[in-house]
């Protein structure tokens, strides 16, 4: 399964090479052109069958994940680090990690319960007080295996949790390898429009890859595909769940980075309803995506974000429903086909 390969791959922001190789392999024989730009975005063109001028449709999914970077070597062989992208300090303690080009395994330090007082256990240990332990006995030994500035990711393997029902799987980096898996699946479809897949870099650092990819592509419309927040655990108060697992792809109406184009919202709703595909709206006002950068490119691009709900994103392990993912592929294929009829090139 492509999602499995993508989830297991090593790809913090700025270090997307492994993910890019997997995606290039997955799509290269079904697209007309493939290129990697200066920031590391992988851009694939699948020409449409319609008459020219054809609508240019950008479908973006970011390759990068949140991760770690080695910033310090201690005499005892431990390595200080910082986080790359949004990671909560509380999640770091005692996690397994993989570091550097040689994928050296290690763990993040944690004081044992025997040596901590009750009040210490109420406090969050900040990232600057933690270290990565790769089992080295000195800084020289550690430096032989890992270099200053090397990246790390959580060491989490993809697994299928249930074959039936929601068909849940767990793994790391579903934000946004879920989006990458959906985008890559779109090359199997036939469209009248020109499809430009942008597997983008450095979203977690501020939508950097998508910004230059959108400038290069200069699209007529854009979709950002995501693995998004899913906070559907039981709550005392009757307040919003952000998105819910198993209720279908989540359409963004507005988040901190953009307002979705109203005609694209209509297109997705109409397409979902005409094809009996379940869908939901993501709670407005939360999060931001590559659409925030894309819609402001040049003179503006009508844009929308649609996402696979993923529980526990930005942690060492997240969980999604393959049914949601399959429904998103269906929705996007049908929407791309519908676009040919509904949108005239300006």
């Amino acid at each position, binding site marked *: 399964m492509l999602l499995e390969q993508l989830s297991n791959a090593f790809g913090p922001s700025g270090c997307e090479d492994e993910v890019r190789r997997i995606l290039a392999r997955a799509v290269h024989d079904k697209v007309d052109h493939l290129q990697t730009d200066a920031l590391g975005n992988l851009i694939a063109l699948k020409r449409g069958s319609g008459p020219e001028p054809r609508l240019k449709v950008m479908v973006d999914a970011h390759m990068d994940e949140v991760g770690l970077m080695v910033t310090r070597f201690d005499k005892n062989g431990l390595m200080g680090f910082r986080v790359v992208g949004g990671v909560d300090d509380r999640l770091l303690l005692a996690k397994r990690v993989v570091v550097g080009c040689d994928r050296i395994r290690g763990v993040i330090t944690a004081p044992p319960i025997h040596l901590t007082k009750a009040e210490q256990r109420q406090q969050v240990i900040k990232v600057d007080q933690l270290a990565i332990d790769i089992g080295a006995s000195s800084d020289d030994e550690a430096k032989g295996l890992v270099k200053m500035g090397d990246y790390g990711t959580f060491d989490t393997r993809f697994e299928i949790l249930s074959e039936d029902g929601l068909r849940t799987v767990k793994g790391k980096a579903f934000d946004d390898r879920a989006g990458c898996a959906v985008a890559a699946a779109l090359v199997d479809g036939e469209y009248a429009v020109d499809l430009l897949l942008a597997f983008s870099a450095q979203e977690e650092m501020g939508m950097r890859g998508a910004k230059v990819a959108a400038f290069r592509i200069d699209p007529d419309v854009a979709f950002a595909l995501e693995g998004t927040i899913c906070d559907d655990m039981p709550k005392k108060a*009757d*307040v*919003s769940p952000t998105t819910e697992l198993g209720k279908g792809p989540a359409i963004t*109406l*507005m988040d901190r980075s*953009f*307002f979705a184009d109203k005609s694209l919202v209509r297109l997705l709703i109409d397409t979902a309803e005409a094809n009996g595909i379940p869908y939901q*709206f993501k*709670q*407005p*006002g*939360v999060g931001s995506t590559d659409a925030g950068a894309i*819609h*402001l*490119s*040049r*003179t*503006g*691009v*009508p844009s929308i974000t649609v996402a696979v709900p993923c529980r526990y994103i930005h942690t060492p392990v997240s969980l999604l429903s393959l049914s949601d993912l399959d429904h998103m592929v269906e929705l996007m294929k049908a929407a791309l086909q519908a676009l040919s009829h509904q949108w005239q090139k300006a």
Partner: protein
Amino acid sequence: MKDLIRRLTEAYGPSGHEEQIRDIIRAEVQPLADDVRVDVLGNLMALKKGSGGGKKVMLAAHMDEIGLIISYVDEQGFLRFQPIGGVDATTLAGGRVQFADGSTGVIAAENRQEFKKDPELTRLFIDVGATSRDEAKARLGQAVGFVRPFADLGQRIVAKALDDRISCAILIEVLRRLEDSLHEVYFVFSVQEEVGLRGAQTCAYGLDPDLGIAVDITVAADTPEAKKLAMKLGAGPCIKIMDSGMLAHPGVKDAMIRVAEANGIPYQLEVLDRGSTDAAAIQLVRGGVPAGCVSVACRYYHTPSEMVDMGDVENSVKLLLAILKTSIEL
């Protein structure tokens, strides 16, 4: 002009939902402009051609206002919301909101004592009179604007959304009175300023102007116990030196000062500690654009009762007209 300000400020137009404002403005500018266009994000551009030899000038006033967006409908039909732009929770409880379709809702606090201690938006909800989720569920994702009637206090006026409809009214008035300018002037009524200067950015990229001037409100600090800022009501348009998003191009700022002094137009200098305007976005498009800002001092900004002085409004119109009549040497 006050009638136009009343119509502009009482209308519905949170960021991303500027259609109704755009319709009002389009009707005003259509007979006055040589060309009127709307771009992808919804910015309205009215062109007044010049007599030749001048610059391409972009004047920008934003159409949008702060508001709320419905993020959840609960079982009893109460609505939860997220802010659109810089919304101050303490100004909300007990107020009313309007939807795009004109229907009304009331903002209420879960528990007023608790809300006073911790005025968070999450402690508020909107009641649209629904009795069930089914009755109100279509509201999810809809944006609301605040409701407050315009009030004419004589020299001063009060309304919601004077930020930045007062500047929309100023630009319309400048367009109405503008004759024989050298310059090709684009009167831009921009979208989504309150959520990050978004409309002005794409619009400026498209227009590629030689000069950009934003017209917006700024903080008037002439009220009891206000911050130590120099701007006040009635002392003339504010010529921006800097705010937290930009340093005005010195040539643009100096040209504004020269023109004001040559024409006997009162003015104040503005250094604003927080906030910014469309000029900050215009300045950074493509290879950079010389940009400045004319601000109208405004009391109680980002509340439903913003106040400006009509003398400042008239002098802003005069200052902009006078600038457009010169060759604008930077």
